[in-house]
């Protein structure tokens, strides 16, 4: 079997953060596999090459064309190399998914200045730098689709303070809206997916340590209590929304967001 669908047939997609901190469905891994299922060629990027092993294995199960590349996407020079290598390998870039990011806990007093700077760099500047290097290529090609993975933390308090993360993710959303308007007439669409409290490997590997002293079940219970739907989604739900936005089905959708949170942000009770 080559792939199961053709919604992205023949398109080249760069997906950053395509690895995962543990086994299972993180957002980046799920997107790489889902996009490949729909016929896209995937240029999979992560700082940690080994974290992409499972991503590659799952995508290659159905014969996907996927190329891993190691890169620190907070580094403009490194991104230049990334884009050059993607073009050398696949000749073009149709889709860019900016998926790198992660929260550091803390409000204004607890968070150190260094942590603040690092949060802005990894969650927001990565989006700016990737767009800076990829958008000229899309403009020359007459179009492209960019999907930024933001978070419901960018629009509200979601149970644990992380002001640097929240501010940066709000920045990602607004960056997307404003750049989308500027480039709409050039055929480049930019949108964001806002995942809510998904059960991804990040929860088990990192968040439980930060928020409930390593008690994963306690954290999952707290998170589920905020979610109207009676289950927690995972990276595959993010991937389906990103796929819709990346595809030509969304050709009139730009400068907006899809919230994938089981209804969490529709309530404040």
């Amino acid at each position, binding site marked *: 079997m080559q792939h199961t669908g053709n919604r992205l047939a023949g398109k080249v997609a760069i997906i950053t953060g395509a690895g995962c901190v543990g086994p299972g469905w993180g957002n980046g891994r799920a997107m790489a596999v889902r996009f490949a299922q729909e016929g896209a060629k995937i240029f999979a990027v992560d700082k940690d090459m080994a974290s992409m092993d499972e991503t590659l294995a799952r995508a290659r199960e159905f014969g996907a064309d996927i190329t891993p590349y190691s890169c620190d996407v907070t580094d403009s020079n490194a991104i230049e190399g990334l884009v050059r290598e993607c073009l050398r390998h696949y000749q073009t870039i149709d889709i860019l998914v900016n998926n790198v990011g992660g929260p550091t806990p803390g409000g204004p007093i607890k968070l150190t200045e260094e942590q603040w700077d690092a949060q802005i760099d990894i969650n927001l500047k990565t989006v700016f730098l990737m767009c800076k290097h990829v958008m000229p290529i899309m403009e020359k090609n007459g179009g492209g689709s960019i999907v930024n993975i933001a978070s419901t933390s960018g629009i509200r308090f979601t149970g644990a303070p992380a002001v640097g993360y929240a501010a940066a993710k709000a920045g990602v959303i607004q960056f997307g809206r404003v750049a*989308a308007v500027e480039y709409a007439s050039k055929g480049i669409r930019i949108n964001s997916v806002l995942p809510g409290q998904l059960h991804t490997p990040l929860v088990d590997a990192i968040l439980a340590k930060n928020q409930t002293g390593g008690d994963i079940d306690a954290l999952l219970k707290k998170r589920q209590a905020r979610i*109207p*739907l009676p*289950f927690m*989604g995972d990276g595959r739900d993010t991937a*389906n929304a990103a796929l819709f936005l990346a595809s030509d089905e969304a*050709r*009139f959708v*730009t400068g907006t967001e899809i919230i994938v949170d089981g*209804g969490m942000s529709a309530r404040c009770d």
Partner: protein
Amino acid sequence: MLRLDGKVALVTGCGTKGDGWGNGKAIAVLLARQGAKVFGCDLDLEAAEQTKRVIEQEGGEADVMTANVTQSRDVKLLVEACMKRFGRIDILINNVGRSEPGDPVTMAEETWDDQMDVNVKSAYLMMKEVLPIMEKQGSGAVVSISSVAGLMYIGKPQVAYAAGKAALMQLTKTTAVIYAPKGVRLNTVVPGLMFTPLVQRLADKYAKGDFEGFVAHRHQQVPMGHMGEAWDVANAVLFLSSDEAKYITGQEIVVDGGITSATR
């Protein structure tokens, strides 16, 4: 996974007057293409019949009837007829709506009441009859069709339409939280300026019939430089109706070419 095989979709306002593709017709036909059996209604039976013919010509299954979904009696009959024909309702599309011009001073009270009825009470009545069926099934997806006019001023006085569409979004969002534990998802698609057959009627109402001028103005209002088409709305509806959106509820997808992200 965008397949809807074995599912039944009820689509209100499924017809388009004359040729061309309005939102309801495109939605009904796209859901049918993905495998859903479609039950549709429209005030205009001939328009609904035409949608049915298109679906059947493509090998799909559909039935239609005339109904005024601002009337609870009609809504009851519609839902009964759908259940009798297909036995279940997995997808409900609240697509009925209409804009009338006016601000609080110039709009007659009767027009205001009528605008509330057609733009939001219609969805309330449909939910009233369909949600118990979805609850019993343990699953269902409702998609309401709103408008960017429900989010902000978009260039013409239509205060009742704007208020009604905003109300429709909030009706859908809050009902989504209440029905989430029962496995029913409710979301809204928010179209911007679309180039549908309706534009002719809007040009008559808002631009003294200057169709060419009205169309050119609407194209340039959109950052993309052109209006969207009914298929763009239908694609978003399909995504939200499908199991691919199983974790999405109480939300909106704006399909507007960027217009609501800018004040230029």
